């Protein structure tokens, strides 16, 4: 087999997302359909989706989606989980046998709540406890891997083309207020089930087109704070950076965007609003290790919303469109048209300019 370097692999990847600002249900079929016109951006080595609002009956429980290499690993892991969580439901994630998707691991999901006694003993808040448990399983338990751990959301990913991955996971049977999707064209790292996008921690998820030149600088910085990059690909570090900046440090999403896609110093110098200039300088200085260089377009999913962001040089494409209560984001307008042929106000955000769309207040409370 020829290795990267002996063979030229043009970087591709496809991202797409949709959200209803009214919190209305959207079938998983919509996001699967978005990936079809972008088929050639992927090479069949990874596809995946994240759906928000898909588990209303279990919305107060963390939904752990897991891959296991064998039954014994699952049994061991369940013993570990039972010591820490109340498991209100555990089941195989329903899949459809199709020839396009093969060699699947054991794919399971658990709806869990941390045991109060364990939380009290650990003196940790709930989210920190869940995040640490995820890191622990992924680093210390060979053959077990948590690939989704948020409330009322879930990630579905596999090796294959994204439209086949959607069929494999029967996404048409789920409904949510927002979805993200990804087709992978791995360039520097292996195509395996855990390496497919989205990458998630708690309710945060990332789909990413591009490659991170600053990966190791970012990884070294973020691993100082308890995160472990275990998935043999660059994108996961963005998920941990967003978790660190927003959940742990308390930055706003817009501020987090100004850290990872910080304006150039020359652009900051020319900023006419002194308050803004001060803020950009502060964020660039304080979190210099979290600046992400290299080309990227990402969609960051969180409970109640989506944020789309390009690298500051805009070396990857991304367009946004609207129709009624819905907002669509994608690498290509064709994918938006596949979701909504009548989409309006199509525009391409500038590099480093975050587009944040949230379910309206009130509408989100009822979910």
């Amino acid at each position, binding site marked *: 087999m020829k290795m990267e370097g002996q063979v030229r692999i043009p970087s591709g990847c496809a991202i797409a997302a949709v959200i209803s600002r009214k919190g209305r249900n959207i079938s998983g079929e919509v996001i699967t359909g978005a990936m079809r*016109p*972008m088929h*050639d951006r992927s090479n069949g080595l990874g596809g995946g989706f994240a759906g928000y609002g898909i588990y209303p009956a279990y919305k107060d429980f963390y939904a752990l989606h897991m891959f296991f290499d064998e039954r014994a690993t699952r049994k061991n892991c369940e013993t570990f989980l039972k010591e820490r969580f109340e498991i209100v439901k555990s089941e195989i994630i329903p899949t459809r046998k199709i020839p396009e998707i093969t060699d699947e691991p054991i794919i399971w999901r658990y709806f869990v709540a941390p045991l109060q006694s364990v939380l009290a003993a650990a003196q940790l808040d709930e989210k920190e406890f869940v995040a640490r448990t995820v890191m622990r399983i992924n680093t210390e338990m060979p053959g077990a891997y948590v690939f989704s751990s948020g409330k009322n959301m879930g990630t579905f990913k596999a090796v294959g083309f994204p439209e086949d991955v959607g069929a494999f996971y029967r996404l048409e049977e789920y409904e949510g207020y927002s979805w993200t999707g990804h087709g992978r064209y791995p360039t520097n790292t292996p195509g395996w089930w855990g390496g497919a996008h989205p990458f998630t921690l708690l309710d945060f998820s990332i789909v990413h087109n591009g490659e991170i030149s600053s990966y190791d600088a970012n990884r070294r910085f973020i691993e100082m704070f308890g995160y472990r990059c275990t998935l043999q690909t660059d994108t996961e570090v963005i998920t941990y950076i967003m978790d660190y900046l927003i959940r742990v440090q308390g930055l706003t999403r817009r501020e987090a965007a100004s850290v990872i896609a910080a304006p150039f110093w020359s*652009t900051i110098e*020319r900023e006419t609003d002194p308050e803004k200039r001060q803020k950009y300088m502060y964020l660039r200085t304080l979190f210099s290790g979290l600046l992400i260089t290299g080309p990227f377009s990402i969609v960051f999913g969180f409970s109640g919303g989506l944020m789309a962001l390009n690298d500051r*040089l*805009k070396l990857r*494409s991304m*367009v946004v469109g609207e129709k009624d209560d819905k907002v669509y984001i994608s690498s*290509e*307008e*064709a*994918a938006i*048209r*596949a979701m909504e042929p009548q989409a309006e106000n*199509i525009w*391409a955000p*500038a*590099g480093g300019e975050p587009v944040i769309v949230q379910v309206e207040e009130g509408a989100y409370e009822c979910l």
Partner: protein
Amino acid sequence: MKQIDAKDMDFETLNRKLRESGEDCAVTGCCGQRFIAAGMSKIHITIDGIPGNALGAYLNGASITVRANTQDAVGDTMNAGEIIVYGSIGDAAGYAMRGGRIFVRDSAGYRAGIHMKAYHEKVPLMVIGGSAGSFLGEYQAGGVIVVLGLGEKGRRIIGNFPCTGMHGGKMFLRGDCQGIHFPREVTAKPVEASARAELEGYVREYCALFDRDAEAVLDSPFTLVTPASRNPYQQMYVAN
């Protein structure tokens, strides 16, 4: 005129049909098929729906009319022919084009005209009716870029870092370009009478295509950007 329904058709089939047609074609239901008309030298093609990336790459004389927006890398390395877009154009439009013409009714994304070049009678032209994103004319080595900024209502008509690395060709920008920062290797100055006739030709052609009032569009200051000298980067890395 041959009708081609491109719905659910892959790009190879679509391009084969175009090549084999031998006559003008009207493509409907287009949704993301790449490389449409790549390298083609004859026929006129009209497209309804969104053509995929690299529309008209290496175009060699054929003409394309799109009744919608287009995606990235339109006219990549095109040599001759014409692409008319009744909408906006994505990133890296006219990438390294060395001949032919691109007219865009609305706006262009990042890096329009990157590495455009010219050779003897081959002088490519790109006219953008709306605004253009950052890095307009990056490494421009030849050809002509026109940005009219129509409908921008006082907003800047081009993004950051225009003309970075520009060393040939020219750029006409509508307005006096206040607040736009150009690199020191280029000269931006008001269009003089000697260049006015050339500019008017481009503007009138744009206005005829998209049904705009040419007099109104021309009733404005224009800025001409050209490299500051024949070899502006002589000492950038080593003497060359």
